[in-house]
């Protein structure tokens, strides 16, 4: 069994296929389950037994290219082609020995459609079910294929709330459905591959990226499941959850929950001597307060606890003991604020000493002068969102 999901997103359409086949058959990756035709305007996902898929794939490729050999691809013509005599002939040819179903995703200039090829069954010696490929030209928002009804219904319910997802959200939803279906169904793998068709290009998410998404989604599922479990155990908790969710309590931006401030406190007794580094750094961080004396820094932090976003400390301020004491004082005052230690070099023992006092990150002074992005990331000044890394297959 294979799970193929097609979804409309805010910027095009995407199709995902699980990778279960790769372990059982001569097809080495799921890539061949997602094949693209006609200058990448059409992508198909298949489910069925392997040898049949190969035959059907080649047959379809022949028909498509014959139909569009002279003319340029356009979506309307493609829709008509699926109802044409050639296509019907094709389904007749295959209905005797094929166990197959699939999805076609087609798009051009920002317009896209999902077609479902209805299953063509041959189970054992009995031929039953629909014995014709019937492309239904209903305008699907989303569809799951591979004869797993629950997946489609879950998706339809999601769309019924008028939520057209972004690409990233759609991939997460695909990951969730793949994971859930893989739990309940043998032969469906939780790892999957995605190809997206947007107005400008064809993109793919490679396996290591979808694996990350899958892992993230599992955590989300386990988290929600635990909450669901709690609401049955504890009536008060369920009441709280309902008010919290429906009053939009969870929609507060994450920044405000963590910290209100923007100020970065910098402590370095050699501040004036290292003008090169600091001129650049202070341009990057407009809200920085620089101190040369630890006691001054501590008193500032005490008075402006709410404003502080992070602390950047030199490895040795006056003496190493003074630095360590400063760190201890600061940890008590602002336990959740990230502290970064900078230095020319670090010994292993030192790293441990600092870590014990709540230092989360270290940065080399040489890097401070060079790598701007790294500085901002280390000081948590940029949103540290892990974005999905899409690979471009083709640009239109």
């Amino acid at each position: 069994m294979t799970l193929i999901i097609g979804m409309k997103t805010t910027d095009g359409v995407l199709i995902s296929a699980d990778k279960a086949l790769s372990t059982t058959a001569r097809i080495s990756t799921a890539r061949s389950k997602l094949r693209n035709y006609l200058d990448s305007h059409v992508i198909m996902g298949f489910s069925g037994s392997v040898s049949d898929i190969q035959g059907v794939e080649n047959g379809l490729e022949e028909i498509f290219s014959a139909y569009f050999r002279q003319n340029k691809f356009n979506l309307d013509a493609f829709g008509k082609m699926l109802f044409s005599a050639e296509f019907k002939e094709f389904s007749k040819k295959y209905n005797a020995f094929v166990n197959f179903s699939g999805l076609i995703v087609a798009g051009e200039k920002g317009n896209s459609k999902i077609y479902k090829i209805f299953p063509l069954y041959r189970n054992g010696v009995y031929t039953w079910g629909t014995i014709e490929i019937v492309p239904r030209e209903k305008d699907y928002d989303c569809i799951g294929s591979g004869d797993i009804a629950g997946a489609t219904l879950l998706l339809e319910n999601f769309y019924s709330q008028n939520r057209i997802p972004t690409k990233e959200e759609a991939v997460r939803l695909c990951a969730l459905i793949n994971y859930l279906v893989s739990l309940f169904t043998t032969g469906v793998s939780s790892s999957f591959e995605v190809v997206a068709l947007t107005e400008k290009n064809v993109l793919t998410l490679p396996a290591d990226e979808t694996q990350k998404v899958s892992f993230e989604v599992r955590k989300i599922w386990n988290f929600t499941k635990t909450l669901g479990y709690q609401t049955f155990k504890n009536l008060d908790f369920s009441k709280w959850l309902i008010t919290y969710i429906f009053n939009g309590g969870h929609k507060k931006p994450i920044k405000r929950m963590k910290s209100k401030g923007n100020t970065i406190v910098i402590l370095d007794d050699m501040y004036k001597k290292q003008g090169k580094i600091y001129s650049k750094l202070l341009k990057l961080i407009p809200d920085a307060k620089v101190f040369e004396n630890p006691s001054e820094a501590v008193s500032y932090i005490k008075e402006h606890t709410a404003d502080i976003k992070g602390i950047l400390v030199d490895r040795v301020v006056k003496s190493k003991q003074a630095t360590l004491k400063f760190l201890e004082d600061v940890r008590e005052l602002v336990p959740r604020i990230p502290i970064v230690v900078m230095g020319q070099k670090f010994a292993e023992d030192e790293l441990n000493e600092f870590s014990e006092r709540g230092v989360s990150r270290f940065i080399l002074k040489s890097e401070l002068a060079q790598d701007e992005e790294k500085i901002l990331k280390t000081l948590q000044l940029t949103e540290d969102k892990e974005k999905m890394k899409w690979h471009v297959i083709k640009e239109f």
Partner: protein
Amino acid sequence: MINVGIVFTEKLKKKLSTGVVMASDRSAHYMLTKNIRIPTFRILKEEEPAVVLTGYGESAILSDYELKIAEFFLQNNIVDCRSFKNKFPLLYRQLAEMSQFYIHLQGKGNAGVIADFLLGISDEKGLGLLYYFMITSQGFSLEELTNVPGFGVTFGGSNEVLMLLEELLKDPYIGEREAIEYAVFILQAVKDITPNMSSQLDVVVLKKGKVGIIPDEELDKMGLKAHVYARWRAIYTMLFDILKEPSIAGNVIEGIKSIGGEQK
């Protein structure tokens, strides 16, 4: 239509007492088959009750099974769960013979479920039993669900919901209120992703040799349906919100901490 059966456990003065909750929606359209009948709770016996909750199947076949089970209770003088268990092999044999006939009648080539139902029994001593019966063209099974995690679902013969339940219910012991809520929750949640299910639900509780029916109207009056549904929507909404923006999970955790709610 979907049927749910859950075994619950309650502590009474150091003694564990078990009972059975069975629930079903009132639709008859789930399967497009002729002669399908509206799901009913057939109470075979009032005292020391035995209740059959029929699921999918033709009415004639289901009635036949019901009569056979009722006859079995009468002929073998079944008065409690223990005597039922003692005579169970006999019932199993009788039902197996019947099933062979129906399998032959339907023809082995026809895939799919011929009939399925849940059977719940309870006695005064505080014991409860739940059985799931299913006959397909490949064979038949009669499975006791009491000692497994404690639930059973008939879902047109598929085991997907059963697996989902196993995923949800890690705790083998759940109380009566929880069991009723779970049953209502499952039916409502499944209704959201299944076409042609009715929103009207009936619940039957078998406990200490007595049987009580909570019809849909009563569930509505109690506010149980609405409350359970609100919870389901809250979790569902949150799941999709987190999928949209995973960092929201952090906010929810902060929120839980702020009310002092525990999170496992």
